[in-house]
């Protein structure tokens, strides 16, 4: 018995029974070979008839076609070449293809709203072909600026990192967005804004992610506990 042990007969802090709630299964890293399960063609083999990839649109999907691309950097500025990225977004009218959307699950029937891809093994660049989402209702009577939800998995990442992608040509909507406004440090809000550009006549938004602050400060992407 060591003499520093706390008094053993204190009553429990919670004298009434807690609601029974089993803990969530703990996360583990996706590891370096996450592509085998989630993007087997990138791992180097073909196995499923129907693959889920980085093209969210078909010819019938409504909305403005955009490419979203970028790289993920670690704390040394090195691209994370084995990252796996997923996005989840509303359709062109700001509607989610899911029954929890109070307007019903049937938005654009030609748009699931979900995509996944790995970073390129040489360059680290990830790419999605999608549409620009419409604005989505927030809590209460707020409106959220158009955004993509994004999650990152990789070797060295123990729990998937959530973030959001906003668009730099939505200045007014971004200024009113509840989540962006809740980021107290204005310098960090910019880390969630993708930059619009054009390549070969196509609209390309560039969204780079920095996992870890560099000594100049303020550049680490804002990550969310959603």
């Amino acid at each position: 018995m060591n003499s520093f042990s706390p008094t053993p007969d204190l009553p429990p802090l919670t004298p009434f029974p807690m609601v029974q709630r089993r803990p969530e299964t703990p996360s583990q890293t996706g590891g370096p070979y996450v592509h085998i399960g989630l993007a087997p063609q990138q791992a180097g083999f073909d196995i499923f008839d129907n693959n889920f990839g980085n093209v969210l649109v078909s010819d019938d999907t409504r909305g403005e076609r955009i490419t979203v691309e970028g790289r993920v950097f670690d704390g040394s500025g090195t691209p994370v070449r084995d990252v796996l990225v997923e996005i989840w977004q509303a359709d062109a009218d700001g509607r989610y293809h899911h029954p929890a959307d109070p307007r019903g699950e049937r938005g654009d029937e030609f748009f699931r709203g979900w995509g996944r891809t790995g970073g390129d093994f040489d360059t680290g660049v990830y790419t999605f072909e999608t549409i620009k989402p419409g604005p989505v209702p927030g809590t209460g009577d707020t409106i959220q600026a158009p955004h993509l939800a994004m999650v990152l998995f990789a070797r060295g990442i123990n729990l998937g990192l959530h973030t959001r992608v906003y668009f730099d040509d939505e200045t007014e909507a971004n200024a009113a967005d509840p989540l962006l406004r809740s980021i107290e440090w204005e310098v960090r809000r910019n880390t969630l804004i993708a930059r619009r550009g054009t390549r070969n006549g196509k609209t390309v938004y560039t969204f780079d992610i920095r996992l870890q602050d560099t000594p100049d400060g303020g550049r680490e992407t804002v990550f969310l506990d959603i």
Partner: protein
Amino acid sequence: MTTADPTHRYGEFVERDLTQHPPALTPGYRTSVLRSPRNALLSPRNTLTERTGPMILPDELGAHDNDMILNFAKGGLPIGERIVMHGHVRDEFGNPVRGAFVEAWQANAGGRYRHKNDTYHLAPIDPNFGGCGRMVTDENGYYFFRTIKPGPYPWGNNANAWRPAHIHFSIIGDGWAQRLITQSYFEGDPLIEQCPIAATVPSRNQLRSLIAQADPANNTPFDSRTYRFDITLRGRRATFFENPRSTGAAR
């Protein structure tokens, strides 16, 4: 069992209890050092974005997608220990998660991954084994698949680090906030105690929840052994009153 009011099936998710998960920075797992944020996470209120999520339907999958023994077989069966892995996907309140998309991937019986970046060339590829499978849970949140028990695998964390036998799992539940990737280990494997990745799990009970248990009553005699691995995702809370206009308090 306590459940949220079923009429509030699509309410906000209960906050993730981060003390039950590995922290981002776990120096014993060396790659995490440069790949972990230095700033605190931001906790916004759940919106439709987090309460909804992608829906994958069973008829989008192939007949053998959950059978790793057959889904890459090229004129022969893969070599190794034949096992069935099964279990339920439930939320924190015990409700089944129906229609969850469960994906799994793993090494072959010798610990070799079918991946262009795997450098463990001493252990050969099995020509009849791909190493990935997927399924959608049924009305009871139940899933099952058949595979070959994976072998342990050496890796460069430190000079003599070996992963325990494990199967990677990815789960897309009924809302984006439930998105989870994890790994299941096998009952009795002595490598679990020495693994820097298993050691990132913050408690014995939580580590135990990642260890699939032998389920001999469900073995298929003279065919395959069976392991049980249940998965718990986040639960939704009831909405007792209309949401106030609030995005969070000052920190």
